[in-house]
């Protein structure tokens, strides 16, 4: 990244060649938005930022992949001994098993991407350029969502490839994998939307990290506790409704409803009505977060 390019000729003398105007091409709105998106995506994994900020996202990505790698290893090596004909942990359950890692990633990267521009007022530099406010908000959300999606879907891809290497049936695995990818995208959308909104409202980065952690981890813990009690006491409906209040249980329910995936929660939605409510809640969460972000940034002054 950092090779000084001003030296010319073998003597190494820096010549002052004066100011050179730029007469080359200038990109349109779409191309600018795309490069903004790519930069945001890279920044989420610490690329193009200081060395220190690469540690956490890369470590989390490695930790996300590690269990999948072990599971694939076991599957490939011991398939016959253990008499396995499918994955030990299904695709759809993998994200909820690793939800702590995902939450930490989102909680660390959403403020880095969103709060940073507000806190340092870098937003002014963006607003003083041709791009629109709306584009800024949507692209930032897209970068965060895709980064989160990559984190969630990378181990799923590893499981899928590993499963094929272990001679699991191609058609069935592809179907299940694609269903889980849709689930990963919805989960990434919900998590990023909520985390971005919290970060945009909490301008201080440290505070934003804590707030996102609280929102994601506490809701999940409370929801799974209620679901456990509901199952024990036979009030499954209470558990099903509780499942709406954490992104993880919500998206898991959607996967159960849409793709008949194996459930990861004690009380998945039963029946079409409850399934539709899960689906609608997911849509409301994502659309609401995007709307909230747009509203929030309307008030940001340069």
């Amino acid at each position, binding site marked *: 990244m950092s090779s000084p390019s001003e030296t010319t000729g073998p003597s190494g003398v*820096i010549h002052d060649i004066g100011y050179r105007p730029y007469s080359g091409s200038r990109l349109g709105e779409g191309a600018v938005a795309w490069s903004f998106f790519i930069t945001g995506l890279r920044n989420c994994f610490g690329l193009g930022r200081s060395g220190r900020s690469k540690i956490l996202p890369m470590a989390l990505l490695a930790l996300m992949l590690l269990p999948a790698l072990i599971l694939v290893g076991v599957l490939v090596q011991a398939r016959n001994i253990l008499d396995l004909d499918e994955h030990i942990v299904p695709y759809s359950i993998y994200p909820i098993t690793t939800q702590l890692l995902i939450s930490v990633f989102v909680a660390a990267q959403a403020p880095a991407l969103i709060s940073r521009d507000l806190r340092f007022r870098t937003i002014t530099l963006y607003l003083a350029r041709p791009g629109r406010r709306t584009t800024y908000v949507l692209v930032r959300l897209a970068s965060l969502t895709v980064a989160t999606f990559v984190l969630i879907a990378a181990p799923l891809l590893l499981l899928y490839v590993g499963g094929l290497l272990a001679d699991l049936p191609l058609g069935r695995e592809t179907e299940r994998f694609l269903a889980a990818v849709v689930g990963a995208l919805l989960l990434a959308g919900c998590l990023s939307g909520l985390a971005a909104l919290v970060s945009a409202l909490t301008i201080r980065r440290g505070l934003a990290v804590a707030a996102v952690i609280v929102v994601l981890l506490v809701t999940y813990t409370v929801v799974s506790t209620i679901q456990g009690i509901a199952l024990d006491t036979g009030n499954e409906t209470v558990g099903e409704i509780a499942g709406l209040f954490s992104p993880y249980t919500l998206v898991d329910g959607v996967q159960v409803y849409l793709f008949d995936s194996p459930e990861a929660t004690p009380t998945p939605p039963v029946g079409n009505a409850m399934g539709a409510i899960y689906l609608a809640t997911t849509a409301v969460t994502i659309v609401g977060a995007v709307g909230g972000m747009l509203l929030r940034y309307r008030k940001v002054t340069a």
Partner: protein
Amino acid sequence: MGVIETVALTKKYPRVTALDQLDVNVGGGVTGLVGANGAGKSTLIKILLGLTDATSGSARVLDHDVTTDGAAIRALVGYMPEHDCLPADVSASDLVVHMGQMSGLPYAAARERASDVLRHVGLAEERYRPIGGYSTGMKQRAKLAQALVHDPRLVLLDEPTNGLDPSSRDDMLALVRRIGTEFGIAVLVTSHLLGELERISDHVVVLDTGRLLRSQATTDFMHATGLLLVEVQGPSDADQRLGQALVEAGLRATPSGRLIEVEVKDEGTYDVVRDLAVDLGLGLVRMQEGHHRIEDVFREGGAGSVQPV
């Protein structure tokens, strides 16, 4: 060609009128925008960028209307904000490249331009370090670089010398002057320090509580006053002796510090001063035309809160 034209531009906040029926015309070269804090300088810049809407009146920048054509203006204009706006965890190099891309430059071109402008603003090897560790002077340079990276036709520099020590201030002013002359980019630079703008501007616009106090070429501000400043060397009371002799010769002479201000009656006045100095055996060090300084405008205009340098 008019770079900036405003007609009856007014901006009212709930409690304050920031700009009041402002008519300003700015051409090429370096234009200084002077005014006390709260005179409406930053508000004017934000309206020109299309970041804030005016309450009434109209403004055109590079032949684009600010209310309908904001994006086109922002593509042609570079903006250096008054406040801190740099993220701490990226290097100046990466930031300027990124900002170039945000203005529509392709990546390779953005890299080349970023390297160029960072050299012009004088950020050397430190451009590769995170901005968090920069001094105020380095941060101001980085802010300026990001305003220049897309080769704008006009740059709006809001208090570029804020927080700089005297020598960095001189560097920054020289750089602003170069942008307006060598680089061929029109510059609108604000400051509450008059002396600074006196040195670098071709034209000065003076704002006072949102109203236009004066707008004219810098040379007009400093037109000759008809006074001759004389400095002599000799015994400790040399200036008094010469002053006395001048008065006796029928000229109006008043002491001004260690100098003597002599009213020029005609061409002969210069000879009289020279001859008297010779007669008294004093060394004539300097004879200089007296000029107005921009700050005199404020004395005349009655804006009390402006601090001269």
